[in-house]
Structure formats: structure tokens, C-alpha cells
């Protein structure tokens, strides 16, 4: 080692001056840290962009353009014999109502916007939603006494008009649109300043049913919300007891053997199987083999149950494991059987954790779309409310994410806005469920 001292260093270094090598190393250190900060920031920026895109695009769906006009319900057209016989009134189809609405709008235009280029009642067709006639027919059938009077109605404007008020439709973009012309937009501007055409909060989007491709202004997410609700009921009723029972067995009773190992490996693999494979399973087993009806929330619920079970089992086992062994020992020491110690003492103490896991599993199931596509919950118009609990489970329905997918596929850009709006509602549900889970965990979960 004495030889080493003869090799005097070539350059004199001091601890007080920073050598180039240290400088380089420190710069590397700073760079590395900056990469980390950049990565975290990128993740957060993506989150902010995603959420603000959703909000920016979706808020519009909660507002809709309405036209408020008095409509004269002509007796000569709606009740020719004048005897207010409900059966005879029902015979008048929506075609009988359309001219009345058009006349009323035309009258309003002539009064409030004189000199407009709209010269005939028929020309107002572009302003009104195709759903207006059915809306008024329903009101008239419910109150036949209205016939012959002039009644103020709030009817939906056509989706192009709605888009114009929201900035989606512009004068440039309608140049090749045969549904609406610039003269209509002029009239809309005037009527809007007079308060006849207004943008208002649209409850029908939240509670309403889906509508056909040509009338996006009428579509709502209410029916598919019910479909989701019935599916979640199935998932809750099946996955909570089965998941808890399976976890209790695996955590408390299972002997260490091949069979238990097999089940454990199975569960961790099932948790990572792509959700669409569960859809194939549902299609083959529940629909092809068991003959359950297609598109029924019951089938959707069964598929989602199988999908969420691994999640629930994994979290339930974690919360059972966190109950200290002293609790079990104390119960056994006082003469309880193994089963009694588990069901009377361990399970109640693990319950908050189990419920938290279940709610998170449900939230995951609520947002899942791919398996629902395979069991037929898309491709049609979910327009009927279920008539009762049995029909709610068995009749074809859609679900919120499937409805959003359906809207995203339709050609009319007005439906995109509704898809974003549907996402806001879906996310509100998910956030609520997660907040409940967090509160449960904070308030009731014990630290041992």
C-alpha cells in the first residue's frame, strides 16, 4: 500500500471547490429529479385535461333550447264531432298535430319578427323538434278539455337550432345542410331576443328515454340509468354474499393444499382476465346455453358479478387478515367454536373494510362497457321504462356506459354532446360511490 502514496494526484482537488466531475454528477442528479417531477406533472396534467374536456363538452347536454308559444288546439282538426270522446281523439295521429304547431310558430314569427324570410307555416318545420307533435298529443289526450282553446306550450326546438344557440352549428357549417337555412337562424336570433326561444335546464336529459337517431334533442339517459340500477342490484345481491363466503373460507378455514392453491391462483388470474372475455362467457353460458333473454339487465348483472367477484374477494381477504389473531384467540378461549369466532367476532370487525371493497367493486362494474356490448345491450333504442321489478330485470334495456357508447357511434354530432353529458352523470355516480367508500374507511375502519 505504500506504493500508492508515490502516485501523487495530477490535479489538486479541494473539498471547497466543486470539481467538474462532481458538477456533472450533481447536474445528473438534478436532471433525474426533474424527470420525476415532469412525469408526475404529466400524469396530473392528463387528468386535468381529461376532466376539463369532459366538463367543457358535456355541460351543454344539461341545457336544451325550448320554444314557448301559445298553440291553438283546433277543434275542427282534433275532435271533428265535438263530443270529446277520448277514443275519437286518440284516432288523430301526430300528423294531425304538426300543422297546428307550425301555424302557432308561424304566427309567433309574424308577430315578433315581421319581415322575416319565412313565408309559410310549413317553412317553420326546421325549427321544431319532431317530438313536439307527440308531446302535445299526449297532453291533449290527458286533458281533452283543452281542445278548442289556445294553450301555452314549451316545445323542444330542433337539434340544429339548439346547436346554433350552443355554438355547435354555425352559419358556415349549415351551408350544405338541407335541414336548415340561414333565414331560419335569423328568425331564431330575433325570437331569442324576444324571449320565445330560450335555453333552459333540461331535466328530460337526466330522466328521459333514448330517442331515434334523427331527434337527438329528445334523448335522455333515464331509462339506461334504471338498467344500470337493476344490474347493480343483481351484482350487489350476488357478489357480496358469495365474495364474503369465499373469502372467509380461504382466509379462515382452508387447509394448505393443492385445491386451495388452485382456487387462489384462479382468483388472481380471473382478476386480470380482460373484461370482454367475461362478455363472451355471458353470451355463451347465460344466453346461448341457459336461454336467458338477450339485453336483459339480469344477464348483465350476472356477467358483472363474475367480473367483480375477484376484486371483492381480494379486498375482503385483506380486511379479514387485518383483524388481529388475539380476537380469534379470545373467542376460542371462551369456548366459541371456530365458526362462531369467525361469524360473531371477526366478520363484524372486518365489515367496514368489506363494504369499502364492495362499493369499489360495484363502481368498477358500473363503468364497465365491453361485456355489455356482447350480451346485446347496444344497437337499439332504449325507449321504454320498465313497468315493474320483473320487467326491470328481464326486459331488454341499456346501461349507462352502453348508452354512452351508442350515442358516440351515431352520426349526428348533437349526440356527441349527449355522450359527454352522460359521462358526467356516470362520473358523478362513481365519485359518489368512491366518496362513500372513503368515508366508510375513515370512520369505521380500526387500526389495530
Amino acid at each position, binding site marked *: 500500500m505504500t506504493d500508492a502514496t508515490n502516485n501523487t494526484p495530477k490535479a489538486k482537488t479541494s473539498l471547497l471547490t466543486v470539481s467538474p466531475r462532481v458538477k456533472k454528477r450533481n447536474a445528473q442528479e438534478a436532471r433525474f429529479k426533474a424527470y420525476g417531477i415532469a412525469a408526475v406533472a404529466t*400524469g396530473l396534467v392528463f387528468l386535468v385535461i381529461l376532466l376539463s374536456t369532459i366538463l367543457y363538452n358535456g355541460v351543454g347536454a344539461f341545457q336544451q333550447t325550448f320554444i314557448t308559444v301559445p298553440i291553438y288546439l283546433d277543434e275542427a282538426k282534433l275532435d271533428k264531432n265535438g263530443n270529446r270522446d277520448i277514443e275519437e281523439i286518440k284516432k288523430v295521429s301526430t300528423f294531425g298535430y304538426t300543422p297546428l304547431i307550425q301555424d302557432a310558430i308561424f304566427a309567433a314569427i309574424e308577430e315578433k319578427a315581421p319581415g322575416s324570410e319565412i313565408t309559410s307555416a310549413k317553412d317553420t318545420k326546421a325549427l321544431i323538434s319532431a317530438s313536439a307533435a307527440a308531446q302535445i298529443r299526449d297532453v291533449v289526450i290527458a286533458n281533452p278539455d283543452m281542445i278548442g282553446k289556445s294553450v301555452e306550450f314549451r316545445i323542444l326546438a330542433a337539434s340544429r337550432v339548439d346547436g346554433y344557440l350552443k355554438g355547435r352549428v354555425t352559419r358556415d357549417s349549415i351551408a350544405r345542410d338541407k335541414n336548415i337555412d340561414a333565414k331560419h337562424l335569423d328568425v331564431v336570433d330575433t325570437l331569442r331576443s324576444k324571449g320565445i326561444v330560450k335555453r333552459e335546464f333540461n331535466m328530460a336529459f337526466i330522466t328521459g328515454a333514448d330517442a331515434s337517431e334523427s331527434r337527438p334533442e329528445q334523448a335522455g339517459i333515464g331509462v339506461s340509468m334504471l338498467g344500470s340500477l337493476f344490474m347493480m342490484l343483481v351484482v350487489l345481491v350476488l357478489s357480496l354474499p358469495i365474495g364474503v363466503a369465499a373469502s372467509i*373460507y380461504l382466509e379462515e378455514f382452508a387447509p394448505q393444499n393443492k385445491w386451495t392453491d388452485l382456487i387462489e391462483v384462479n382468483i388472481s388470474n380471473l382478476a386480470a382476465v380482460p373484461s370482454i372475455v367475461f362478455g*363472451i*362467457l355471458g353470451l355463451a353460458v347465460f344466453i346461448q346455453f341457459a336461454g336467458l333473454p338477450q339485453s336483459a339487465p339480469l344477464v348483465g348483472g350476472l356477467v358483472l358479478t363474475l367480473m367483480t*367477484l375477484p376484486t371483492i374477494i381480494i379486498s375482503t381477504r385483506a380486511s379479514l387478515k387485518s383483524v388481529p389473531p388475539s380476537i380469534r384467540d379470545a373467542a376460542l378461549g371462551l369456548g366459541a367454536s371456530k365458526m362462531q369466532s369467525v361469524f360473531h367476532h371477526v366478520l363484524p370487525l372486518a365489515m367496514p373494510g368489506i363494504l369499502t371493497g364492495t362499493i369499489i367493486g360495484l363502481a368498477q362494474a358500473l363503468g364497465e362497457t365491453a361485456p355489455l*356490448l356482447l350480451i*346485446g345491450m347496444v344497437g337499439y333504442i332504449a325507449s321504454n321504462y320498465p313497468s315493474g321489478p320483473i320487467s326491470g330485470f328481464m326486459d331488454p334495456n341499456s346501461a349507462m356506459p352502453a348508452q*354512452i*357508447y351508442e350515442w358516440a357511434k351515431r352520426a349526428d354530432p348533437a349526440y356527441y354532446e349527449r355522450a359527454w353529458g352522460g359521462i358526467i352523470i356516470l362520473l358523478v355516480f362513481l365519485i359518489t360511490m368512491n366518496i362513500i367508500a372513503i368515508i366508510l374507511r375513515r370512520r369505521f375502519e380500526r387500526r389495530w
Partner: protein
Amino acid sequence: MPLLWLVLIVLALAGAGYVLGRQRAMSSAGGDTRHLHSLPVYYGSNVAIFAAMPAFLVLAVWLIAQPLLVDSIVSADIPATAVPEGSTLSLLMSDVRRVADGLDLAISQGTIAADEAKTLRADATDVRALLASVGVALGSDVNETTLSAAQEFRALTGTGSMAMTVVVLALALGGFAYAYSRTNKDFRARNVVERSIRGLLIAAASIAILTTVGIVLSLVFNTVEFFRLYPALDFFFGTTWSPSFGGGSELGVLPLLWGTLYISVIALAVAVPIGLFAAVYLSEYAGAKVRAFAKPLIEVLAGIPTIVYGLFALLTVGPLLVKFFGSGGTFGVDWMSGASSVTTAGLVMGIMLIPFVSSLSDDIINAVPQSMRDGSLGLGATKSETIKQVVLPAALPGIVGAILLAASRAIGETMIVVLGAGAAARLSMNPLEAMTTVTAKIVSQLTGDADFASPEALVAFALGMTLFVMTLGLNVLALYIVRKYREQYE
């Protein structure tokens, strides 16, 4: 007897069994619970369990087995010559079932009498019109074979249901009587009840196995069916994907696999660096406050449903990319014709995968023992050198496992590619072109009214099988690596 009534009767028997069993135990002990072996609840539960459990078990098995059995008997009776040209036995059988259901409906609505339905003849009555009047629409007129098969179907089903009712009720009563007769103060009711509860727990745990078995069977059967109609070699090595329901489709899986892998690689190229650096920063540099704030927020990305990402890709990212790379775009190049492309789907999927990579890697980095860091820092290494040369190599197997799990997610992801990647199956290198994936094609082949007998629909099961095998392989490998690694430091 309707099923609901049968269930209710068995449940009522069980309820009565609970009360009676409890009473009998109490009276045998002279009203003093101290003389009983178990708590009185257990005696009651014992009788209830014996009344209900075997009965319900048999009921469930019967309900599954009967339709299969009836189907096979009836279809065996249909002569092969009766199957019309261009049709199959299974199509004929579905007609038979429809007619049988229709007859049931007609009887319950009172259109025809029960005896009349049994003696109905196709040449004497217009069965199609009759069924149409109760709301069952048939595609063609009903011939004699179909009608007589439907009548046989109804007769067998009727006999089966009757037998089921008798057997189930007999089992319920028998179980009730057996358990009731055993009830006395020395009977070890608790042990018996706990054994049955244990059986239930085991059954619940086995559902996981059943699910896997169900997945494998439903995939295998339909895949085998598909390969009978379409050569397996052409499927695995074909480079053209052009299904046409008219026949003459080419169903090569290679373009789909290419699209899947391409999109997954792009997604991982986005997610792995960001997720890994985020995990390193959060676990090694960030203070407790930053960590408590940033970690859950990044994990929110994992909780957002994939349909949201799909919409984001279709309506926001896609059009944005077109603005840059499309004709007349910012860069003045015309590389992109539509909003959907490999990059669109890959980028968005990458965002979705960030939290998977980051939280898994975070756990693994945290599991590296502190002493290793201390040793490295004590020798004068900077923090980043410690991380690069000590922590990451030690955590490498676990991180590889995390990346493999993320890759399996990417391969199995459906909604983002259905909405963002396009529908055209291509073997192309251009990342701005629309391509399609295995999952997207499963969706497109199985939605719609295709009958499940054509190769164009069955191919979806073969695709599902491919997907299942690929993701399962990745998962097993990843779990093996992670588990192996965990043991290293425990």
C-alpha cells in the same frame, strides 16, 4: 306447479322446521337450555337446513339438466329426412321450441284448451295464424314434423316438471322428517350445522373455479366448432381479414394481432417512462405531503371507466392529431386521413396505463430494503446514482412484472380501440393509419343479429381464445416474477 310456488313451499317447510326443531329440542331438555348439547338455534337451523338444502340442490340441477335432456330426446325423434334443404337440425329445434312456447302461451291466454293443444294437427289448423294471434311470430308455416315434435316437447317438459315437483317436495319432507326425528338433547346439532355452513363456504369459493371452467369451455367448444368450418392454418397464418356474411370470408388473425401489438407498444411507450419516473419520484424524492396529494390523484386515472377514454380518443385526441398531421394541418403533411388511428388509441391507452405502472412499481420500489440505499449513499453515491445502480436493479424483476401486467391490460382493452383505433384490418407500419385489434373485432363480429352457426360469428370465439391465452400467459408470467421477487427480500 309454477316454480315460484315450489320454492315458497320448500321455504315454508324450512321455516316450520326451524320452529318445530327448536321446540322439540327444548322439550327434550325439559325447557332448560343447560341440558342441551348446542344452543337451541342450532337445533332449529339443523331441521331447516335438512329440509331446504337437498331440495334446492336437486331443483337447481334439475332445472339445468331437464331442457338438455328434453332437447336431445325430441331431436333424436326427428327423422333426418325431415330437416329441410339448406337448414340444420338446430334451426328446426329452435322452431320446435318456439311453437311449444307459443302453444303454452295460447293455453294460458285461453285461446285453445289444453287437450286441444295435444291433438292439434298441422293439416287441420293454421298453427301459424293461431300463434300469431297470441303474439308469437313464426318465420314460416308449421309442418306436421315440427308440430308433433313441439307436442312431444311439451309432453316431456310437462312430465319432467311434474316429476321435479314430486321429487323436490319428497326430498324436502324427507329431510325435514329425518332431521326432526334426530333432534333430542344429546344430538350434536352445532357440529352438523357448522359442517353444512362450511360446505356452503367451499361452494362459494369454488365459483372462481367454475367461472374459469365456464370461460374455457365456452371458448373451446365454439372455437372447435369454428375450426371445423374454417381451417385453423388459414386462421393463424392468414394475412387478410375480410369477413362477409354472405360467405367466402377470409379470416386471418395476423392483421388483428399486428394492430393489437402495435397499439400496445405505443401505449407502453407512453405509460412506462411516465409511470416509472412518477413512481421513482413519489417513492424516493417526494415529501409526505406531495405523495399524499399526487399519488391518489394519479390513481384516479385508473378509476375512470374505459368508455370515457374511448370517447376522449374518438372526439378529442383523434381530431387533434388530424389537425397536426392531416391534410392542411399544422405540419403541412397529409399522413392522417381520419381521426381514428393506431396513435390515437395508443396514446389514450397509455394515459390509462400510467397508474397501473406507477402504483405497482411504487410498491415494488418501496419493498427494496432501506439498508441497500443507506449502503450506497454511505459510499458517496448521489441519490439518483443510488436509484439507478442499486434500487432499480434490485426492483427490476418486479418492475418487469408490473410492465407485463400493464401489457396484458393493453392487449385486452376493448372500448378505447373500438372507438379510437378504427375498423380496417391492415398490416401497415404507419402509426397514423387506422388499424384494428382482436378485441375490437370480437365486438364487431358478435354484435348484430348474426346467427351463431356461421364462421363469421364463431370466429369471435377463436379470437377470444387467442386473447385469453395471450393475457393468461402474460399474467401467469408476471405473477410468477413478482412473487419470486417478493420472496427475495422477505
